[in-house]
Every structure is written in structure tokens, then in C-alpha cells.
């Protein structure tokens, strides 16, 4: 079964951890993840600028490790990211900001990537809110 997983909440929201555990369980169950798409406050999960206290769950770090290890497509909505100050080098240069905080394996791209993933997948699963 092919899953598209979309995350709409920041790294500190419980739903972000839920999304990661669902994604891990999906792969462990022999399923495929066609894309992870990060929208609205979900873009904060891709930020290298999040510093989590040492004794707390570091979700941005876990997402990065998960996406790298499993070679997944981790796409951050560019419009949502710009609005929230989550920029990669290219966008930081374009808008002359000294604030790049997103790097590979993350990619910034448009909302079309969400629709594209939905078309490719058997199921879209969204996580967000509380």
C-alpha cells in the first residue's frame, strides 16, 4: 500500500510525533511512503533552528534521520515556510535574509507536490492540530 503523509503541526505538537510513529509503522509493515509533505506549522519540523532540551524528544532530528535513512521524499511547502521564516540557502539568498535553517534531505516546493503525492498514493493520511 502506498501512503502520502501530510503534517500540519509544529514539531512540539503531539500530532507531529504521531505522524512520525505512523510513518515508521507503515514502513515496518512493508508499505511505501510516496512523500511526506509538511504544510502550515508542519514546516517547523524541517527547521535546523529548533533546539530541543536534551532530556526531551527531538522531533526535527528524528524526522531528519528517518527521511535520510529511508531515503524518503520530505517536501516542505515553500509558501507556508517563507511565511514562517523557515528558509533554505536559496530562499535566504533570494529574499536577502541571514536565516537559512533548512537543508537536505528536506526540499522546499509547492502545494502541487501534495496533490501529486495524493494522486500517486492509495491513502492520504494527515496529522495536525493537537
Amino acid at each position, binding site marked *: 500500500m502506498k501512503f502520502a503523509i*501530510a503534517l*500540519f503541526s509544529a514539531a512540539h505538537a503531539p500530532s507531529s510525533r504521531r505522524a512520525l510513529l505512523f510513518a515508521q509503522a507503515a514502513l515496518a509493515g512493508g508499505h511505501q511512503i510516496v512523500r511526506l509533505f509538511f*504544510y*502550515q506549522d508542519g514546516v517547523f519540523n524541517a527547521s535546523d533552528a529548533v533546539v530541543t532540551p536534551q532530556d526531551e524528544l527531538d522531533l526535527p532530528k528524528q524526522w531528519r534521520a528517518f527521511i535520510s535513512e529511508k531515503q524518503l521524499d520530505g517536501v516542505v511547502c515553500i*509558501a*507556508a515556510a517563507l*511565511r514562517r521564516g523557515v528558509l533554505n540557502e536559496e530562499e535566504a539568498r533570494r529574499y536577502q535574509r541571514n536565516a537559512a535553517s533548512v537543508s537536505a534531505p528536506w526540499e522546499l516546493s*509547492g*502545494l*502541487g507536490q*501534495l*496533490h501529486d503525492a*495524493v*494522486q500517486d498514493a492509495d*491513502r*492520504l493520511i*494527515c496529522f*495536525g492540530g493537537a
Partner: protein
Amino acid sequence: MPKSVLIISRQSPWSGPGAREALDIVLAGGAFDLPIGLLFLDDGVLQLAAGQNAKALQQKDLSANLQALPMFGVEELFYCAESANARGLGKRSLDEAEPLSAEHITALIDRYDQVITL
């Protein structure tokens, strides 16, 4: 056949970027000629109130974007009749949006391949 997606928009227009970002998903789908439906539910029906003034809050006018939906190929527009009644929604913009009862919304969700509720 492309998969159809129903977006259920539940946020009031002035509670942050939520309503606009839900609409952006709809517009992006329309731009790709995908079968997209939009249902306004709960506080989302307040996006349809006539005579709103975005300038009063230095915001962009969401109503104008809603009016443009049919031009973007999004013609499946609905709102929850019960949510509208509960909120005393009187004069509406977006005449194209069709009121639906709870039973019809159940059937609507059934009809679409995937659903996103924001």
C-alpha cells in the same frame, strides 16, 4: 482517472492563515485540473458571510479568492446548512455554494477518494 479530493474548511476567515491555506490547497488542485471539492463546515461557513471588510484588519480579501473558485475550475462548492443556521449566517457571498444537510455531507465524503479537513 485522477483521484478526487474533498477539502473541508472549518476555520473562520480571521483566525490566522488557516482558512487561506485551506483555500490554497483547493486552488492548487484546481490549477492542476484535479477534481476538487470544497465544503465549509463549522466556523468555516463564516468565510461566506457577505460584506466582510478585510481592510479593517489590514488583511487580503479572502472573499475575492472564493469568488474566483469557479474560474479556477473548482465548481463543487458546498456548505453545511446546520453550521450556517447555528451561526445565524444571513446574506452569503459565493452563490455557487450549495447548502447540505448532515446526511448529504456523509454521502459527499463517501463520494470523494480522499479528504483533508483543516
